[in-house]
């Protein structure tokens, strides 16, 4: 377990775009050290030459038979779901200075 790197939570939380309180980070840090220590079990396995498996079945390049137009939604149905909308458009805080 000593070989397990301690997670830099600030760095990872920034990658994940996730705001966390100091208390949350402190608690999570200890828990993640335990969990990652447990993950070290995997280092004991010889995986030389083993092909990685991303999926239960081999699925490649799935093409639709024919892309028929189906039911669509009126813009107001979809923009209604947004926290804020105006004129059938989603409103967000200013993102360009």
């Amino acid at each position, binding site marked *: 377990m000593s070989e397990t790197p301690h*997670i830099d939570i600030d760095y990872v939380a920034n990658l994940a775009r996730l705001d966390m309180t100091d208390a*949350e980070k402190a608690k999570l840090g200890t828990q993640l050290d335990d969990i990652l220590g447990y993950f070290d079990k995997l280092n004991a396995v010889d995986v030389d030459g083993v092909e990685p498996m991303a999926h239960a079945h081999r699925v490649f390049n799935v093409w639709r038979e024919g892309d028929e137009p189906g039911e669509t939604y009126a813009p107001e149905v979809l923009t209604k779901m947004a926290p804020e909308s105006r004129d059938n458009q989603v409103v967000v805080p200013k993102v360009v200075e």
Partner: protein
Amino acid sequence: MSDLHFKTISELAAMLAAGETTSVEITQAVIDRTAAVDAQVKAFLSTDTEDALAQAKASDERRAAGKALGPLDGIPIGIKDTLAVKDQPLRCASKMLENYVSPYDATCIVKLREAGAVIWGRLNMDEFAMGSSTENSAYQTTANPWDLETIPGGSSGGSAAAMAAGEAIATLGTDTGGSIRQPAALCGVVGMKPTYGLISRYGLVAFASSLDQVGPFARTVEDAAILMEAMLGKDDLDSTSIAPQGETNYSEALKTKKGPWKLGVPQEFFGEGIDPEVKANIEKAIDWYKSQGCEIVDISLPHSELAVPVYYIVATAEASSNLARFDGVRYSHRSEEAKDAMTLFTKSRGEGFGDEVKRRIILGTYVLSSGYYDAYYLRAQKVRRLILGDFEKAFEQVDAILTPTSPTPAFKRGERADDPLAMYLSDVYTISVNLAGLPAISVPSGFTESGLPIGLQVIGKAFGEADMFAVANAFEKAHDYAQQTPTL
């Protein structure tokens, strides 16, 4: 008819066909039962009785016109809060989706409607299906109807508890690492996870896309088979769904496939961490199969002890990517403190997600991050193939595999809340099945001395549902565990 709510789909279908009851009567019985017990059980996040009764009335009218659709016509089915049901809330038990209402039906819901089913209520779960106890719901903690102080399992805890308490005739759940089978075992009902790809995931809120599957909870194996027949099939809206292979007339298979079978028992599933009562119970079930002429084969799944770390790397990696869509922009919670693009994302996500979801997003982001990808994610994907290889080798010798579903019966609320690793180990017997994409079912196999249910897991070959159902059905029909109900 006071006990309609505890009847099976096949019993009710026969009664409906004979004109002995109506869908409105059945639906009303389920509504009344829910009103009577859900204050204790807390299985439902929301219900729409008017909508359910309208569907029931439509079913009765169909039947009166001679146009009844089949065994599911008029049967009320509860839905886990992670599947889209048109015009109903879909919150995934998260504050992040507090105000979300589905604009469309998930494909499995469309198929149930086509079969005439009455879509009934939204069932509690662990937030975004992350958990094994339903304690991670942002709204309420569901109780196990067999002992209200204990958890119902998870993440589909509401779906399992509603079945045990008679609040639905059947329910749907989702199973990413055991989230149908483990709560089914802990609540004493049947729960089944299909072969990966057999049921469309369209309309299911994605957690870990290479593992997630929709599946049924039911009172009997036969009912689960009826539900599977209605829902399976390739769907253009889910490119990972697969055209069914092999025998898919499961109800017929239950009548024709009588064994004896060659059944594998992996010794790795009976070692450290298993509760002695669970162990004795499952060994007794294995002895029963032996007494029926089945050949019991000792098999080895040598990489199964690595399933937990592989799963929690693969699943959290996929989750961190899938949950990136909850960004406060289009349909999820938005923080009032959002001042610019960055705080819009970080504050909204920080406020909207609960502890376990945050834990998994951080873990998943970490194992995918530069410098750690090879050591964790890539290595886990390789070990995943070794786990599949173990099963493929075992299935050269046997028709199905028997194991406990959960290493322990239901545990007390709060017992593992602060120890995520202990919670993750609740899934030790179920997750290798998801990693390998196989079908598996949990059937009630008895009770502990204190009266808590235990479940037997039958694992089938890929697309081997017909045999898996038949093996489970034989055990169920020879015992009365599935007919027992808790006192509430």
